[in-house]
């Protein structure tokens, strides 16, 4: 355990140093994360206004403008903390052979990549904290933070980060078999965004789509912690939410192991 703490600490320092070299582009990437949720908020605010101040779903869930503001602001923060972009970089490494020097090290490349992802989150979240505070002040969301819920949301966010990261990494590993992994990734991003609730809260999804979204891994990657923070989830559903997260994390680890073993054989068969 102490070994891994030292490895991760060293990798985190390295990744943070690299981030500071590219602070401007890192900030642009971070700001890009505002676009989706703010667009969603603008559309739903307009729709709410047209409907006379609130929208009620088929399942009887009601959202006012302030509820949408709360949802999209919390979603924006959780999305930022759980975002992952490794597919692009990984595919590039496989194609140009730069994966090879990483494979010669006695630790798997994924550890360095996770540290890199964490460094991005730490650096950019620090930069974005005042912006998030300003948005909360300006948009006046209907939210009453509960310390208990926030404490429960912390492990949920941590699990969500790992699940989203592992699924993204698994997708990236298709680069071992195809040179066009970006196209698959684009499709995945669209599905992820939709079923994770980037366009609309899952509570507003029509029946059958709501069921798919509820059981899909994407809810565990972002929506579940958002629901905890917003206080929209009954406490008795917390346990099931965590169980789903653990299930999807296990599935992600299993899939990673399977794809890594196969990918290594493929990579080393065609010429590393």
């Amino acid at each position, binding site marked *: 355990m102490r*070994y891994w703490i*030292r*490895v991760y*600490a*060293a*990798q985190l*320092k*390295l990744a943070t*140093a*690299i981030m500071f*070299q*590219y602070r401007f582009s890192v900030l642009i990437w971070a700001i890009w994360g505002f676009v989706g949720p703010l667009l969603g908020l603008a559309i739903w605010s307009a729709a709410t206004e047209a409907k006379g101040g609130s929208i009620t779903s088929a399942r009887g869930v009601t959202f006012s403008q302030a509820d949408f503001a709360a949802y999209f602001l919390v979603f924006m923060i959780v999305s930022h903390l759980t975002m992952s972009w490794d597919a692009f970089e990984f595919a590039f490494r496989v194609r140009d*052979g*730069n994966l*090879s*020097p*990483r*494979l*010669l*090290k*006695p*630790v798997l490349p994924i550890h360095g990549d996770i540290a890199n992802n964490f460094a991005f989150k730490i650096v950019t979240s620090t930069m974005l904290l005042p912006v998030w505070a300003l948005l909360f002040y300006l948009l006046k969301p209907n939210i009453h933070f509960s310390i208990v819920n926030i404490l429960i949301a912390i492990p949920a966010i941590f699990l969500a980060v790992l699940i989203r990261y592992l699924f993204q990494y698994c997708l990236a590993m298709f680069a071992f078999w195809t040179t066009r992994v970006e196209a698959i990734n684009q499709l995945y991003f669209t599905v992820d965004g939709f079923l994770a609730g980037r366009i609309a809260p899952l509570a507003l999804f029509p029946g059958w789509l709501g069921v798919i979204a509820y059981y899909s891994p994407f809810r565990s990657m972002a929506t579940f912690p958002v629901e905890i923070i917003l206080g929209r989830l009954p406490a008795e559903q917390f346990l099931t939410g965590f169980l789903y997260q653990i299930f999807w994390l296990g599935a992600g680890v299993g899939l990673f192991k399977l794809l890594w073993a196969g990918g*290594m*054989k493929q990579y*080393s*068969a*065609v*010429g*590393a």
Partner: protein
Amino acid sequence: MSESPHIVVRDLRKVYKVHEREAGAAASLKSLFKRKYKEVEAVKGISFTIQPGEIVGFLGPNGAGKTTTLKMLSGLLYPTSGEAKVLGFTPWKREPAYLRQLSYVLGNRSQLAWDIPAMDSFIVNQAIYEIPERQFRETLDELVNLLDLEKLLKKPVRGLSLGERMKCELAASLLHRPNVLFLDEPTLGVDVTMQTRIRQFIAEHNQRYGATVILTSHYMADVTALCKRVLVIHHGSLLYDGDLNQLSERIAPFKQVRLDLETPMEASEFAKYGDVVQIEGAKVTLRFPREQTSQVVSRLLTELSVVDLTVEDPAIEEVIDLVFQKVQA
């Protein structure tokens, strides 16, 4: 009791399956439905053994199978068949205990983070290879002195020249004092002074820590300066495994003499002594069968007005070239 070999290779073979198609849109469309593959045998069942602390030169033209062999021995490639044990490990199982004792310097690939000083990458290696602080400082000091790294460690890697970067790559690869070191073109694109420096450094490191080294290089000077033993590979087959000095005796059974004459002579006049390799005014280089050396030299000294005479083996580049020509024929 003698130490067991560090590297044992038996009938190692690697066949690549390569996708093949003609140029043009029609061929591109056709390949969508029916793909044509060709099998390329990059390494054809080679065998050799390397003892602890040996520095072995791996020679061969481009595409001979040198890098493929090194990649199999470092665990980057699965072989198609055959066996290999390095430090008792099967390389392609990629066990961390094996990778901790290995370093593979790929001349055209970097393990250093590009945007920040090399020292930051060294610190990550310290954690990954669990190098104790004292050993890390000692080794780093040695490397800084031997490779003159002092000023380079604070510059971002992207701002270093090719030679400077290679020195940092070498340092990063040696911090954990590997028992086995694969050097693939370590002096590629580096100027002559830096080449000499790197050679001296490799020799010193090998003496100090007894690491087993396999070196591939297109510069014969690297090989002659560092390796007593060479493996010559061509079209995936091992053509020679033995002493570098004996290579010329075995493959090129001739000697050369360099003559400095008082007056220039026509090339045709040397035919009775041997083949003319080079003629430039009064300076001539002749080649003749090895067993005729004393006879030819004494005739040259008595029959011609010689100012200076040197007998030598043919240059190693020529010998290697001859090996490949023989195989081609």
